[in-house]
């Protein structure tokens, strides 16, 4: 796992550094005659990042592959929670804070561990409504309201 990941990160960071160097060169130079303009610092960073990525790739290809015990990852549980979090963000400004937070929490609680529906509903409702009332009514903050109609 680590070795494959290292290879990928090495390549990704190398690409980022190339992009960064290229983009730094596009930035116009100094505006007021000073020797160093806005492009110097990013350019240096880009070059160092590139060298470090090469170094990482070199280390990765040189090291012997280590056999790691296969860890038991709960991809399904994580996937559902991540997906519902994305949907939550997407719907936040449409359905408002209270509804989306409530639904997200109910889904996430049940994905974590099935059962205890009443307790789940109560905790989710108390959190969603509680945060909204505390923040908007007591502290005068602003959170998205239901805005479909």
């Amino acid at each position, binding site marked *: 796992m680590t070795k494959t990941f290292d290879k990928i990160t090495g390549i990704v960071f190398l690409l980022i550094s190339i992009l960064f160097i290229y983009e730094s060169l596009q930035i116009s130079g100094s505006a007021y005659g000073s020797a160093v303009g806005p492009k110097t610092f990013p350019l240096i960073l880009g070059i160092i990042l590139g060298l470090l990525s090469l170094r990482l790739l070199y280390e990765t290809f040189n090291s012997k592959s280590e056999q790691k015990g296969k860890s038991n990852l709960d991809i399904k549980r994580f996937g559902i929670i991540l997906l519902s*979090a994305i949907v939550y963000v997407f719907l936040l400004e449409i359905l408002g804070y209270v509804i989306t937070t409530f639904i997200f929490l109910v889904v996430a609680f049940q994905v974590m*561990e099935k059962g205890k529906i009443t307790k789940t509903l109560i905790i989710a409702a108390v959190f969603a409504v509680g945060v909204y009332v505390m923040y908007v009514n007591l502290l005068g903050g602003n959170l998205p309201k239901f805005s479909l109609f």
Partner: protein
Amino acid sequence: MNTFQFLIDGFATALQWHNILFALVGVIIGTAVGVLPGIGPMSGVALLIPVTASLTSGMPTDAAAASSIILLAGVYYGAMYGGSTTSILLNTPGESSSVVTALDGYQMAQQGRAGAALSIAAIGSFVAGIISLIGLVLLAEPLSNIALEFGPAEYFSLMLLGLCAVSGLAGKSMTKALMMTIFGLVLGTIGIDAVSGIARFTYDLPVLYGGLEFLTIAVGLFALGEVFKTILEREADAQPIAKINRILPTKQDLKDSAKPITRGSLLGFFIGVLPGAGATLASFFSYITEKKFSKKPDSFGKGNIAGVAGPESANNAASGGAMIPLLTLGIPGSGTTAILMGALIMYNVQPGPLLFDDHPQIAWGLIASMFIGNVALLVLNMPLVKVFAKVIQTPQKYLLPIIIAISFFGVYAVQYSTFDLYLLLACGVLGYLFSKNDYPVAPLVLALVLGPMLENNMRRALTISNGEWNIFVTSPLSLIFLVIAMAWILVPLILKFTGRKVIVNEEE
């Protein structure tokens, strides 16, 4: 005005009723954060920045900044307290800084001395907290006076030193740590350049003009990263918790731990002041020292109370010591202090030598509140040890989704944009992947905070010198900083080359 006068004024700030409340809430949340496995001090502080920002939104800026930093610092040293509880009762350290506490603490719990171990940890933490605060009070003025003499070149080199120190000690691979540091600096250049007003790497996207928000990245990498880790790596069910019978330590216990506490506090304080070396290293060193000083080194690992008292004092003293470079020089030495610094910058307060002149209310208010917070921790924790032991049993089923919800709320309340929420999720996934594959994330956050300042000082120095790069080596102070910075990177490499083992600082 002298230091004493300033300190009295600080107490005047810290003793305002809402600030006492903030300090109390901070240390209680901090203890809970320390007790709960899965949230460390770094994610706890990051998670609470937006919450405090909204709590203090009605106050004038200076007072708001003082109150928030009082709460956040409370979380920081409160977590150091709480971390020992799980080590002793469960043999599962809540933080990396209490790993060594588990060695003897859990053994003591097995022998029915859990209460004594917990209270000695609390007493040690208290003494250490006070000792490091006295050090902070004494060193603050002279250090910030020295720092006032620094020009841009010295500042640039000093920041470089801070970055090198943190990368040099973080994680297993230095290449990876350095990559993370540079990546943080790279991310910090996104947005409108403060000096020339030119947009860099924004691709005409309005959300990027202000740059990537530090808060979003920190909460994502630390808080969400850890939550995702726990969701993915389903852990075995909790073990039974050791019973707490007698809370107060015996006279013999106190006598045995007096010296370890003193040694641990002093050692921890000096290690904490050094950039890069944090509470984890301090507790390790203290354990080794105690073992050397002890008349019965064999009894370590079998429930020797000195093995609890020393390291616990050391990690608390280190967290106090770490405040010194942050407050006086404006250079955070660890991940958590980087986050505290980010919080101050959010309030437009620049930590550094000028902090004590420009915002004495914040600087001395914070120091005074740490005295109050430490007393509160001692008073609260002795009787509440059993309650906090209960916190360990909070079911993850409810805890983890609520942490996600809190971080969403926090980031949205401060940034008011869904772009930041997507960024938050992305950082969470990255944070998990990075730390799983030994890419330390603390240097990234530190670099993100220091990046803009590093660049500005570099450019100012080069403007002064008409573009001559040798300004960084002709100024003697700057040269010294650069040499030390190089040493932080090179010495571990040389040691590794000669086949010696290097102690690295785990994320804290």
